[in-house]
């Protein structure tokens, strides 16, 4: 190996490897490169093996290569050198004017091909510099292409190149996955073959407008369909059009589910609000009916008043359901008789299933008690009932069974005694594949289902320490069974209607009654006065505070609504507790008990009464609060 260091005044010293077996030719070439303008470090080897060894340790900028060496000849020499030095520019110097070989080497990566005797020093030097620049440009292009290729192949978005006729010229794997086809099968296919009918017109419009975005449904071979979001750019290269595509089917499903959830939330709020207002109205009706009853001069008048009171109680039961639906009630665990719970909502169950479905209820009495939230249990029954109804669009039989069940050796149910609530339908049944997913949130097979019904049931049952199973066979209907542990040796908590006493409880204390519903306030006032109480009344919190401040005597009890104009119940309660610590407090509201803590009022649960209430219940509650304080 010989080394020739030439002019180093140039800032960039080019490293040249001359591979030439003819020492006379090598001398000629290195001699030509001794130009004043050259800044080269040239090393000469005569054999291919020597060249490969040199390239293992060095990275020349350019290789001047004679193809015919002692140990290699022709294209093979070029191929071996190119493999060993893919970053170097290669300039072939040949004694043969072989055009085919020249074209082949240039096509395969040589930067130039010069015939010996046709170049002087200047031309050779210029060729070297051009070759290096070309190589650098090629390398930059290669890296850019590699980057683009990596992005193309690894993009999670589908990328497709189409020709003018919508034929796929190139596609990445993500595009193939989107329509469940191998990438190779996608190439050569027509775009419109995968789109819904009428997309041909869209394609023409896209071509005309040069770019655009949109969505289309694509039908897969397995019969399913996916919603595709696309972005189109025409002529990214002449006659080649780019489309970026992605599957938004699940995203759209999620958005629909979110919209449904929000809709349900809105409906719930509306129901809760309506129930609150309705409770106030019922309170007025109920109160005046009780006044009529107490002042009735005949049995007929008394009977009519009782019918009004009875009707308001039924209406109050319905509003409780609305409040539960609107989730305005907090979870309150208490001992429940599920048969009584079912009985309480039987009218709603009737309404829910409709006339086409026959209802068969087999609810045994006194089977035992469970510890659960009543409104949640009502929701479980309603959701499972709604699910059964959906399974029988053309009618059938809905069977609700409540019984006691002893588990001894079952895989999904620990040993013990349970109250079993079973709801069966005679619908088409649920396939095995779907059965494993039906309790997942947002999983639904219904077109307009939220996928929340059964998942809510599952959550409530688990929260209550219970278990749920489903048994279903094709064309034989489905049975959902809820198992809640039996609480032995206890008695059920009284329901509000049962706790209502018809007794008239007299009193003598002073009561401050605050309610913005004037009719209800007046009726209540009249009733309490008839019981012997001295009653001060106010239409809002601010007026009540003025009375508190002005009234010199003792006020034994504050009865107040929560939601009122000017100053709400919380502000009033805080003031009374501060200025009159001896005054007892009883909160009344058209909302559920949770409204008390939602408004930040610390209160014993026994000091709350939900509207509508009968005056007898009110008087009993007043006595209970006052006597407890005493």
């Amino acid at each position, binding site marked *: 190996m010989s080394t020739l260091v030439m002019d180093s005044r140039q800032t960039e010293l080019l490293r040249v490897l001359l591979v030439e077996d003819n020492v*006379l030719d090598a001398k000629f070439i290195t001699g030509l490169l001794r130009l004043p303008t050259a800044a080269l470090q040239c090393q000469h080897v005569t054999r291919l093996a020597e060249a490969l060894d040199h390239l293992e340790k060095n990275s020349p900028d350019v290789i001047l290569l004679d193809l015919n060496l002692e140990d290699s000849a022709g294209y093979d020499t070029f191929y071996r050198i190119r493999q060993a030095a893919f970053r170097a520019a290669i300039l072939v110097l040949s*004694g*043969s004017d072989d055009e085919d070989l020249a074209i082949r080497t240039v096509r395969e990566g040589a930067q130039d091909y010069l015939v010996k*005797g*046709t170049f002087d020093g200047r031309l050779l030097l210029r060729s070297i510099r051009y070759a290096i620049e070309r190589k650098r440009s090629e390398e930059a292009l290669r890296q850019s292409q590699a980057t683009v290729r990596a992005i193309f192949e690894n993009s999670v978005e589908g990328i497709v190149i189409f020709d003018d006729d919508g034929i796929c010229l190139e596609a990445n794997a993500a595009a193939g996955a989107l329509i469940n086809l191998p990438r190779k099968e996608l190439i050569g296919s027509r775009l419109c073959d995968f789109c819904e009918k009428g997309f041909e017109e869209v394609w023409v419009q896209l071509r005309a407008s040069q770019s655009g975005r949109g969505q289309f449904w694509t039908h897969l071979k397995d019969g399913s369909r996916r919603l595709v979001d696309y972005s189109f750019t025409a002529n990214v290269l002449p006659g080649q059009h780019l489309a970026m595509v992605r599957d938004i089917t699940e995203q759209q499903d999620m958005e629909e589910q979110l919209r449904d959830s929000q809709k349900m939330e809105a409906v719930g709020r509306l129901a809760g609000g309506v129930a609150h207002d309705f409770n106030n109205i019922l309170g007025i009706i109920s109160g005046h009916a009780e006044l009529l009853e107490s002042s009735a001069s005949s049995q007929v008048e008394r009977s009519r008043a009782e019918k009004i009171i009875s009707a308001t109680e039924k209406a109050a039961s319905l509003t409780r359901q609305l409040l539960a639906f609107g989730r305005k009630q907090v979870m309150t665990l208490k001992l429940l008789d599920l048969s009584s719970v079912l009985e309480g909502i039987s009218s709603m169950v009737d309404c829910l299933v409709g006339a086409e479905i026959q209802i068969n209820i087999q609810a045994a009495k006194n089977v035992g008690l469970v510890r659960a939230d009543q409104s949640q249990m009502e929701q479980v029954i309603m959701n499972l009932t709604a699910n059964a109804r959906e399974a029988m669009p053309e009618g059938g039989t809905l069977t609700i069974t409540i019984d006691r069940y002893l588990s001894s050796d079952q895989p999904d149910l620990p040993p013990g005694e349970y109250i079993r609530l079973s709801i069966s339908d005679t619908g088409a049944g649920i396939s095995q594949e779907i059965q494993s997913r039906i309790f997942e949130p947002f999983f639904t097979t219904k077109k307009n289902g939220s996928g929340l019904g059964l998942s809510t049931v599952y959550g409530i049952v688990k929260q209550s320490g219970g278990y749920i199973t489903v048994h279903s066979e094709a064309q034989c209907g489905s049975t959902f069974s809820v198992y809640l542990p039996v609480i032995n040796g206890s008695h059920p908590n009284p329901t509000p209607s049962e706790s209502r006493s018809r007794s008239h409880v007299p009193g003598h204390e002073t009561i401050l009654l605050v309610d913005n519903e004037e009719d209800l306030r007046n009726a209540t006032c009249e009733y309490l006065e008839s019981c012997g109480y001295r009653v001060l009344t106010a239409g809002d919190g601010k007026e009540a505070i003025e009375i508190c401040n002005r009234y010199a005597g003792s006020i034994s009890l504050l009865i107040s609504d929560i939601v009122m104009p000017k100053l709400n119940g919380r502000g009033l309660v805080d003031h009374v507790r501060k200025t009159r610590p001896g005054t007892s407090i009883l909160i009344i509201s058209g909302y559920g008990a949770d409204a008390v803590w939602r408004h930040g009022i610390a209160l014993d649960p026994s000091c709350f009464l939900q509207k509508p209430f009968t005056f007898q219940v009110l008087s009993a509650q007043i006595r209970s609060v006052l006597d407890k304080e005493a």
Partner: protein
Amino acid sequence: MFWDESRADSEVDLLNREGFDPQALLHLVHGDFNLLQELVDLFGTEVPGMLASIEKAIQQGSASDLEKAGHKIKGSMLQLSAHAAAKIALQLEKSGQTGSMDGTGILLEKLTQEVHVLDQTLRSMLQNRLSH
């Protein structure tokens, strides 16, 4: 394609030229007589070996060796603008390619003669340069 075949004389063009072109050689080496001296010195040591390789290939009837040896000396003759010698070397190379050994002995004699003349001419060029 980057290769510009029109920018330089082709091998065919060179081989169609007659004899040795001293001016062309001086042009290629940019009048660098030092380089020319080095080339002439190497010519004296390398070219006899090349001719011997051709002779050996002919004697042994090895067409492939004849092709290689003919190709090698052809490149050197082209570099030195010795067109007549390069033309004969090409004929020897082609004889090797085709495997036809007929007349190769005569071609070798002609080539040897051309090379001898070339050597004399190159040396006289250098001599004249020194005397001037």
